[in-house]
């Protein structure tokens, strides 16, 4: 095992320029989060008046001391659907993996401080994603519900697909993964099924509303006068229907109860302690901010990243002499041994075979895989085609798709073309996938797409025997470039749930270490599954 020798010069002008570009990305993110926080704080007065806690406070209280929390998809829906200026991003919920009573759980809290916690299509996707994380990693779920329900403007995108939420809940229960739901406010119509399908339900007195139809609809439908409490209040559900197991006096009380309930089964889901004696990387994580070139066309050596995220910066490189664009090797992160794949350029036929072989070797001994994506895609051209890039690239995708070990992906730079697939992009279902703020993703780069369009246009005109107006050609190129580039940013991607969140590069090691231990512990955990889930009988 050798310690990677870094060739980065943190004092160099290139490093400073790279760092400045990265800082700009980070500042942009911080600004978005600040605006969201401001928006949430604006609701404080209303929440105070009702004696309620803000959703983020609910989550903070639920978690163990120090708020151990990996927030997932915090910018889902950014500038999508009803999010006009980015200040209401998040898909109407706060979700993540946190530690409750020493057990890792998936937390999903309605962000009722923003638009009443209504669910947009990206909110639905986010909800489904975190449920999948719970299922794959065998983690209990805690839902903190208070939502106005689906945003009816987008009902056509929500209605049919929305059923998956409930199907997942039933399947989690059947798989032996408990779900606790606290109802802090409205959970009506479809939302009522979330507590209905949870294993443990706590409702907050005088605030919870769990019914299919509220007073106006009931009046309209059957002419009955009925109030909220009678139709679906906490005490009604705790004493008459039995839909609630417990009543809480207020938000804090309900969180206290949820923690006490979680404690009763926490032993089964405890996260094993981190092994002691783990060596930190030799190089500071801070330097991760200056590695990726400010100009995406400049190459970067992924070993520099590996050196700053793996234990002791130690890396046993696999087939170092066989293709220098696809880097494979073995390392440990937080004491967990894993295979690491990274790109130093396009994936060649040799790179693809090397990667596919390496993936199979890791599967043979059950070693998780980490993908650090920075590729312009699979190599093109006569030489590449004749080398069998399609065949070998396919083999690589096949290996990734069918790998039996946990796979975690980080987009550290470019993620273009089928390189996104071969390096375990979202569509290949990695257990977790995160993106650095500088990362770019797309079928191809804006520049390449523009040139392709220009060539095609010229060819079309040539076939018709027409002259091409160079100004028009330039305009077409400009439009294509701008469109593709704006659709390639990390923010564009994270808004669409193409990743589980944009992370600060400095946090990469910690997040990978945590996710690796979640995956490994989840895979080792045996569950008491049953056929139909636990039902309120």
């Amino acid at each position, binding site marked *: 095992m050798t310690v990677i020798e870094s060739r980065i010069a943190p004092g160099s002008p290139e490093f400073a320029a790279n760092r400045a570009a990265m800082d700009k990305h980070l500042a942009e993110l911080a600004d978005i989060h600040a605006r969201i926080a401001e928006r949430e704080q604006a609701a404080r007065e209303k929440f105070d008046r009702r004696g309620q806690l803000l959703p983020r406070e609910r989550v903070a209280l639920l978690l163990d001391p120090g708020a151990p929390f990996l927030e997932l998809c915090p910018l889902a829906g950014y500038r999508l659907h009803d999010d006009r200026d980015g200040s209401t991003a998040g898909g109407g919920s706060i979700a993540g993996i946190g*530690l409750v009573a020493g057990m890792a759980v998936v937390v999903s809290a309605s962000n009722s401080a923003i638009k009443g916690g209504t669910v947009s299509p990206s909110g639905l996707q986010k909800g489904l994603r975190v449920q999948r994380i719970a299922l794959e990693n065998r983690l209990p779920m805690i839902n903190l519900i208070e939502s106005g329900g689906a945003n009816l403007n987008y009902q056509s995108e929500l209605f049919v697909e929305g059923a998956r939420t409930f199907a997942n809940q039933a399947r989690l229960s059947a798989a032996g993964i408990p779900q606790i739901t606290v109802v802090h406010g409205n959970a009506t119509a479809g939302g009522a099924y979330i507590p209905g399908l949870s294993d443990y339900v706590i409702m907050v007195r005088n605030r919870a509303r769990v019914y299919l139809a509220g007073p106006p609809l009931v009046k309209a439908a059957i002419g009955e006068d009925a109030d909220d409490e009678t139709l679906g209040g906490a005490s009604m559900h705790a004493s008459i229907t039995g839909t609630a197991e417990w009543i809480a*006096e207020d938000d804090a009380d309900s969180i*206290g*109860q949820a923690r006490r309930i979680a404690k009763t089964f926490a032993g089964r889901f405890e996260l094993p302690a981190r092994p002691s004696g783990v060596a930190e990387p030799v190089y500071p994580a801070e330097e991760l901010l200056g590695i990726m070139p400010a100009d995406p066309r400049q190459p970067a050596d992924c070993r520099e990243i590996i050196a700053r995220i793996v234990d002791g910066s130690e890396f046993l490189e696999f087939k170092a002499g066989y293709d220098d664009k696809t880097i494979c090797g073995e390392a440990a992160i937080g004491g967990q041994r894993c295979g690491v794949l990274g790109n130093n350029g396009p994936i060649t036929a040799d790179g693809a075979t090397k990667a596919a072989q390496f993936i199979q070797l890791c599967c043979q001994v059950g070693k998780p895989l980490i993908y650090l994506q920075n590729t312009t895609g699979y190599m093109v051209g006569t030489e590449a085609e004749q080398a069998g890039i399609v065949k070998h690239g396919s083999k690589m995708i096949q290996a990734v798709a069918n790998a039996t070990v946990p796979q975690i992906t980080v987009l550290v730079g470019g993620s273009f073309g089928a390189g996104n697939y071969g390096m375990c992009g979202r569509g290949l279902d990695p257990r977790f996938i995160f993106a650095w703020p500088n990362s770019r993703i797309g079928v191809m780069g804006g520049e390449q797409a523009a040139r392709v369009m220009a060539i095609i246009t010229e060819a079309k005109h040539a076939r018709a025997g027409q002259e091409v107006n160079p100004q028009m050609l330039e305009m077409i190129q400009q439009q294509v470039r701008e469109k593709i580039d704006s659709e390639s940013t990390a923010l564009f991607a994270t808004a669409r749930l193409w990743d589980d969140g944009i992370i600060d590069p400095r946090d990469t090691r910690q997040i990978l270490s945590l996710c690796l231990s979640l995956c490994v512990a989840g895979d080792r955990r045996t569950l008491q599954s049953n056929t139909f889930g636990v039902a309120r009988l």
Partner: protein
Amino acid sequence: MKSILVANRGEIALRVMRTARRLGYQTVAVCSEPDRDAPHVRFADRFVVLAGATAAETYLDVERLLDAARSSGADAVHPGYGFLSENAAFASACLEAGLIWIGPPPAAIEAMGDKSRARAAMAAAGIPCLPGASADSSEALIAEAERIGCPVMIKAAAGGGGKGMRLVSDPAELADAIVSAAREARSSFGDGALIVEKALEPARHVEIQIFADAHGNVCHLGERDCSVQRRHQKIIEESPAPGIDQSLRQAMGEAAVEVARTIDYVGAGTVEFLLGDDDRFYFLEMNTRLQVEHPVTELVTGLDLVAWQLTIAEGGKLPLTQDQISLSGHAIEARLYAEAPWRGFLPQSGEILCWQVPDDVRVDAGIDQPCRVSPHYDPLLAKIIAHGPDRESARRSLIRALARTVALGTVTNRCYLIGVLEHPEFVAGRVSTDFIERHGEELAPPVLKPRHLALAAALLEQPADKRWPEAERLTRPMRLAADCGAGEPGEHSLSLRRTGDGGCQVQIDDAEYRIDLEPVAAGSVRYRHDGVWHRACVARKADQLWLADEQLDLAISDIMLAPRQAAAEAGDGQVLAPIDGRVIALACAEGDQVTAGQVLVTIEAMKMETAIRADRAGKVVGLGVAEGDQVKSRQCLLRIEAAESGSEDD
């Protein structure tokens, strides 16, 4: 003499055993069951456990102590102070059992044990005494008191340590004071006899340490001022007494030596005097044992008083003559008690979770960490004694030592002691026995500052598992219940956010406090607040956090998620049948006023009776059933019209 059994516990047992061990003697400890792991037990070469917990069952049980000495092979007994140290019967029993008694002869103990006899003997010997008398009946005592004239002091004849002692300024209060003093005397000493004595006010409590050997040599080791007392129990002692000149010292010393000679005293003893502001002094009593405050004398004389006791017990002569004894510098002792000074000095018990003392002053401690402070015994935790070239330097050192002393897990008088030592009257040496009565109110209770709350919040929120990212975007609301041993325990709402670089931002009201934490050693942290690094000591037990800095001890917990009392759910007044059945009893009539929970109707169903109670207070209306009626499940039986606000249900 080879092996010494110390018939005591706590700091004095350790103190005696340390000297004994240094001089090559074997040490034997005794202990009650709760003291099984106490420091004095751990220190001893051998120990004997006395079954039981109370002092009466253990440290006061003569027979069992003698058995312990026998079975452990001890050939000498040191009684320490308190317990049986001034019990002539125990001294005799030890001697009769063939043991060496490290204390005065039983006759000397007896001579001083009864205050009225001691007074008479001393007066006869020409020692100045305050006017006083003893009497058999309370009527006679009142008559004597009135003859002497108020203010007078009522005292237990058999007593000491402030028990059974009452100061009476108004003759009308005499009768009550006598009754309660007699009751206390009986329960403390098994003897309700009282004496009455003229009260001297203001007066200082100045005592002389004397030593006498069996060869007729007697000397004194200077005086101690023990005027600062609460409830007639000393909390601060010093030597020499401030403002006493050599001639007065000599006069008091000679009087004390004369007292010892009068009763053929042998061993260590203390003659207590009241000193008036006219420099006249009066015999108060003699303690026929080592005193709690003997270390101040040891520090100014450079002598080991326990070593002297052992020498004399073995029949040796006094190691020094009077003119070889000199006093050097000044020593002050503070007694650290498990008590709440700002709550009427209420004794405390609990578990010491963190115990740290500075190493540049003398500390005689009976506790360790962890260790239980039992409610069965005296709540003295430790004595902290500073010595310096003059009073001011000793005082400064002692304050600094107390500021760095940490006893977490129970309320102590630590900050109160600092307050006394810093009081201008104490600084000026103007001490008297009513110091606490006069100035106690001026000692400001510790002040809980926002930075303490911010620190506590940061400590309570310290991440246990460093694998996780810090959730910078989550703000945790907290509700801290804080008790600094004074006033009512307070509740404080605040919120905490981690800053992502290991620090915390705590918001209290409208102010933000930034806290950075650094662990120093087990139980200690350094924290930065407002650019200054402070040091604090920390202990945790379950959800409770204990925190000490120089100026306060704090017990704090986050009660944000504490289980709530379920809100009493007032019903809607609709009283429904819970089940199909037959009304077998009707306990209310139309228009009756009923209270919540009152039985209204009894229904029989499935061969079982079900009582139906009022779900709120009010008036019965719409009673629609009679006894014998068959009712359906959820049928409305009656309604309760809510009582008007302010009705009879409260």
